[in-house]
């Protein structure tokens, strides 16, 4: 079996060689339906996404932007189940070579069953798992199960005492998701972000990616060009917004693949080399 950890690692190594940041495209699965998942991911790949993060729909996503709840609700109403999702994920794995990250709430994982969940990750050859509601204090059981299939639990950090950040980073792998809410002053935020990323880099060799949901296109682009200490950037909100708007306005069954590709391109083409 191919070593999955390598797929993620290779991507970051490639980024480093090309001196650019990784673009992580995030989408909630099951909207407009599960059959569309592969086509959506292909559109994201075409636009230049370096990795894809697929979210399992969850009705109470306290760690996500409101759009995730809206799409999740529609997915569940359309008959989404985690079991069907893992089937779709296996098909998706065959249609793309990009690293695939799986984002799921622990509520869902526990409800579905940790062992079954890990089995699903293994079968779909997932490259990393992101669990927004599973802090350091509670992640031991799932982490040891993911260890057996060599899939990293991606650590999520927020500004906190360094001691805690260190413990969180050491409890995970793959790369570090950095969460930090942008304040009023966008200029100052870029500096704060770089400082924070640099602090984290002093305690780990893992790449550091920005995990906040960027809503404003221009601001996101500015961040991409100026957050030099960050190794990757997540775009989810704007992609899911595009998907929803198009699906609600067009005939059902017609996916806005071109629009999605264009949104990713807007970011990928602005990934200028770091100075």
């Amino acid at each position, binding site marked *: 079996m191919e070593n999955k950890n390598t797929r993620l690692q290779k991507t970051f190594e490639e980024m480093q060689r090309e001196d650019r940041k990784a673009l992580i495209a995030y989408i909630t699965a099951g909207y407009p339906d599960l059959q569309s998942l592969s086509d959506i991911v292909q559109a994201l790949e075409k636009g230049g996404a370096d990795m894809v993060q697929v979210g399992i729909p969850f*009705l*109470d996503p306290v760690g996500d932007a409101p759009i995730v*709840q809206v799409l999740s609700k529609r997915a*569940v109403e359309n008959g989404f189940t985690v079991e069907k999702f893992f089937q779709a994920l296996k098909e998706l794995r065959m249609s793309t070579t990009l690293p695939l990250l799986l984002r799921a*709430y622990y509520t869902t994982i526990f409800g*579905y069953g940790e062992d079954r969940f890990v089995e699903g990750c293994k079968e779909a050859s997932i490259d990393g798992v992101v669990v927004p509601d599973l802090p350091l204090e509670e992640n031991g059981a799932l982490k040891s199960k993911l260890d057996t299939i060599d899939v990293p639990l991606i650590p999520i950090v927020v500004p906190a005492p360094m001691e805690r950040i260190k413990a969180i980073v050491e409890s995970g792998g793959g790369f570090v998701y950095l969460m930090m809410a942008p304040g009023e002053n966008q200029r100052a935020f870029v500096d704060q972000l770089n400082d924070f990323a640099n602090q984290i880099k002093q305690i780990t060799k893992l790449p550091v990616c920005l995990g906040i949901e960027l809503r404003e296109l221009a601001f996101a682009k500015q961040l991409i060009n100026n957050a030099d200490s960050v190794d990757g950037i997540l775009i989810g909100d704007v992609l899911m917004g595009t998907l929803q708007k198009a699906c609600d306005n067009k005939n059902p069954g017609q996916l806005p693949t071109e629009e999605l590709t264009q949104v990713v391109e807007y970011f990928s083409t602005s990934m200028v080399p770091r100075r």
Partner: protein
Amino acid sequence: MITNEKAKFGEFGGQYVPEAVMQALIELEKEFNKARNDQQFIEEYRYYLHDYDGRPTPLYYAENLTKQLGGAKIYLKREDLNHTGAHKINNTLGQALLAKRMGKKRIIAETGAGQHGVATATVAALFGMECEIFMGAEDVQRQRLNVFRMELLGAKVRSVTSGSSTLKDAVNEAIKDWVEHIDNTFYLIGSAVGPHPYPLMVREFQKIIGEEAREQILQKEGRLPDYVLACVGGGSNAIGIFYPFVKDTQVQLIGVEAAGKGLDTNLHAATFNRGTVGIIHGMKTYLLQSPDGEITEPYSVAAGLDYPGVGPEHSYLKDIGRAKYESATDEEALAAFELLSRVEGIIPALESSHALAYAVKLAPKLGKDKIIVVNLSGRGDKDVQQVAKMKGIEEI
């Protein structure tokens, strides 16, 4: 192996929340632990319980009800006599004092039918704090009187339209707001639920009910009761009266949850009788859920009982066999509501009526030498309009 043991009751409880929320919980836990060991804080809390709330509440021998049922002696712990009409204020006073001690100027809370919102708005007014109550948009429509009460007390009511626009969504939005405004905001949870330290903290602020009841029954009867009954939604009144009796293993603890239209229908809130273990609102506990862990909407005639989960300490007491969890239907609760009104001149809350309904079933089976204590957690003034409507009396 159980991880994060300090945050758990057996395997239940814990902290299943985003890292940003953890930062807030860590601060809260630290400050709560300091406060609960600070004599000055305890005295201040007791002062407000006594002079403002009116504690201790009586333990009343319901002689008429006892005679009518013809079995065990029934005592009522009169939490309905608290200021604002229910046990809720024991907790809101405690948490608001903690907020004040932490230097927070703003209090937020979730509310379903509005009772916890009113109890929170009350203490915010008392301590001069800004107050915002998160309430599902549907509940805002259904509970206009309580919305007005909260506004009268100076609180702002925020109507939540995300998700299914109900209590669980109000909780989600309150958590998000808390994380965004952690510097000046205190999140005051209304029941013994949520991530650690809330279930522990709420129990500590509600255990006064059981401490008083234990002392009062010893004084009146010279012995402990055979049964202690309480209704269970989130379970704060129940854990409040149970906890001081947990070590008295001769006392049977019985929680009564809402069977709604019946346990065999989809319309109930019987978390223990029909639920499974899962994760909700940051804790591991019994809950009503789909196979994928999505919360299913509960139902009860009593708004305060239609919570899809239950406090983690109850899950623990159930699993170790220390407490039993029975249920009462809407119909049984309504009958108990009318019975107590008629024979004792006390209109109980529909929530408390569930505990009474079980007492009505239990007492006749027991000898006259047995003693039952029922936690009468709230008064029923808030429910009379609803009951009238159900009886077909439209215009009140």
